[in-house]
């Protein structure tokens, strides 16, 4: 922490107060800061509301189970949103791939070692289809995936006849996907953290990551410089749906079943999680770690409210409040702070600051037009 501001120190050594002030200012400019604040505040609030039940290991385990499944799904959505696209079909893809996995095991007697990869491949294929339509017909991904969401959900309802289907899953597979780990946490949490790490490396340290950001910021510029933007788009959709399938398989392992409504509504939860995590809705900028924290925020709300004895509908309301609050923090406040001068001669440059300014400029343009 202490050596971070030091990298930008001017010739004179600033006072300790200024260093801390600048450190705080920079922290506020990080995309993840809102989600970190949300996690901390919710922790305090829920601990006060139910001091006996909330700060316990059992609660943490439940929170992480929810956060992991939703988080894996949301990481794909985050990368896609940074690349400048939306995917409303991830919930339906999660449902349909879960169905494929269950049917392969139950009706075809296949081992999950085969059924699970096939389900992921089917997910990738469905994602590829989304991407192909977006690229080939130049239709906004929001509309394309709205369509495929309805299609795959309809197909799933038809296939299941609306009834839940259960399946016997080998214990080993159950354990590997979602079973209890040391300290009682579920394996899904390990997958969640691993995917967070991989996606972060992909986004910030790989060529594809650079292309994703460029695609989301200035598609024409990227294309004119020889970035294969259409290929990037298709890869993003494939990745997103494949991750939806992974989340689906984890749920299958946890519930040993699938039903017609599996995954419904998760597409919007994923957007909420992504936005809480500091990714710009307008694309081009965001953080996978932010999304991870956003998913944990989500899990805390869900579990915390139940423990506090709040009525069920309260969950949506509170989530909505937090989403709106997060967006305000991530854009408006950050924008103001970005325009404010850095303290004590620090360098100005900061990705988040610039993102906030740009988001603000875009919003002002929108209001004017």
């Amino acid at each position, binding site marked *: 922490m202490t050596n971070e501001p030091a990298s930008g120190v001017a010739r004179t050594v600033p006072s300790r107060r200024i260093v801390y002030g600048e450190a705080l200012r920079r922290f506020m400019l990080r995309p993840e800061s809102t989600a970190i604040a949300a996690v901390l505040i919710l922790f305090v609030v829920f601990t006060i509301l139910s001091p006996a039940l909330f700060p316990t290991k059992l609660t943490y385990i439940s929170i992480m189970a929810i956060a992991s499944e939703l988080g894996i799904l949301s990481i794909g959505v985050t990368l896609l949103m940074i690349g400048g696209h939306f995917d409303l079909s991830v919930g339906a893809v999660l449902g349909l791939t879960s169905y494929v996995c269950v049917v392969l095991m139950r009706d075809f007697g296949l081992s999950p070692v085969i059924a699970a990869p096939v389900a992921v491949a089917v997910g990738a294929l469905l994602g590829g289809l989304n991407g192909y339509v977006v690229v080939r017909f130049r239709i906004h991904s929001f509309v394309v995936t709205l369509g495929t969401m309805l299609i795959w959900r309809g197909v799933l309802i038809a296939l299941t006849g609306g009834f839940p289907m259960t399946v016997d899953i080998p214990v080993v597979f159950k354990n590997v996907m979602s079973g209890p780990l040391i300290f009682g946490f579920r394996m899904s949490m390990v997958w969640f953290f691993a995917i967070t790490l991989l996606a972060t490396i992909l986004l910030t340290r790989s060529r594809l990551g650079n292309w994703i950001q460029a695609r989301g910021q*200035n598609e*024409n*510029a990227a294309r004119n*410089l020889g970035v294969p933007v259409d290929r990037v788009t298709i890869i993003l959709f494939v990745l997103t749906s494949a991750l939806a399938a992974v989340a689906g398989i984890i749920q299958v392992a946890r519930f040993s079943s699938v039903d017609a409504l599996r995954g419904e509504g998760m597409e919007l939860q994923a957007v909420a999680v992504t936005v809480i995590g500091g990714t710009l809705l307008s694309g081009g900028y965001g953080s996978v770690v932010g999304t991870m924290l956003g998913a944990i925020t989500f899990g805390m709300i869900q579990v915390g409210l139940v423990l506090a004895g709040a009525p069920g509908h309260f969950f949506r309301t509170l989530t909505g409040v937090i989403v709106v609050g997060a967006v305000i923090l991530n854009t408006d406040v950050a924008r103001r702070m970005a325009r404010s001068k850095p303290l004590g001669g620090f*360098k100005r440059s900061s990705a988040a600051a610039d993102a906030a300014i740009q988001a603000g400029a875009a919003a002002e343009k929108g209001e004017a037009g």
Partner: protein
Amino acid sequence: MSEPLNPDQPPTRARPSGAGSGELEASRRTIEPIPPGAVPVMEADHISKGFGATTALVDVSLKAYSGRILALLGDNGAGKSTLIKILSGVFPPDGGTLRFNGQDVVLRNPAEARERGIATVFQDLAVCELLSVTRNIVLGREPQKGFGPFKFLDLKKADAMARSALHQLGVRWERGLDEKGINISGGERQSLAIARAMFFGSSLLILDEPTSALAVRQAGKVLDHILTARDQGQAVILITHNFRHALSVADDITVLAQGRVAGHFRRDETDLDALTDLVARVG
């Protein structure tokens, strides 16, 4: 932040009477004629293009030679941008042929044009606002390290590339290479785009109105960069509305009017009045 510059690349030579030093003057007084038998880097041969009902280009031919600057003049809507978009692979012509180093070529997309060494700085500037200077410069040509599927960006090498790209052009970049695109001014964007285009070994540099949005000093700098590119042996096509700029740096001048070639001159065969006259008459 001032890292040592790459010693392998000499700074561009000073040009005391060059465009950068205030008063614009012709960059070279006498213009050698194109040597007979020289093959143009890019030749457009009877190109036409329409957009639905509008005809943007009719039978337009031009040649760009290595070490020469061709200025493309014309009124708004004359078809200049359309022509260079065809030369850059943004869209194909309806009729006519492109020849690159004497060979017929079909450019299916901008990536193919870039692979052949055609670098274009478009009118709407290609900068990603939230990427760093370095990432903007290497975009599409990012250096990687590692092997097989485990390839990562080589960020150190990328910084070195960006630094030498800027140095090669003689751009003094005093802020850090991690400065984001959003904080880069119009003139700096042009410089950056030209540096990028030159660094990745282009043989044809195309610039669409690089000076139109710039103040005098910045415009002079950009013209200086264009001369540097020419001196390094690139063929340059420069679109501009500014006849003075064209007359100060170009070797050849082609005037487009309503999608047709209205005239083609060597720079020393024409002057400001003649050009103004011509454009007023045909535009």
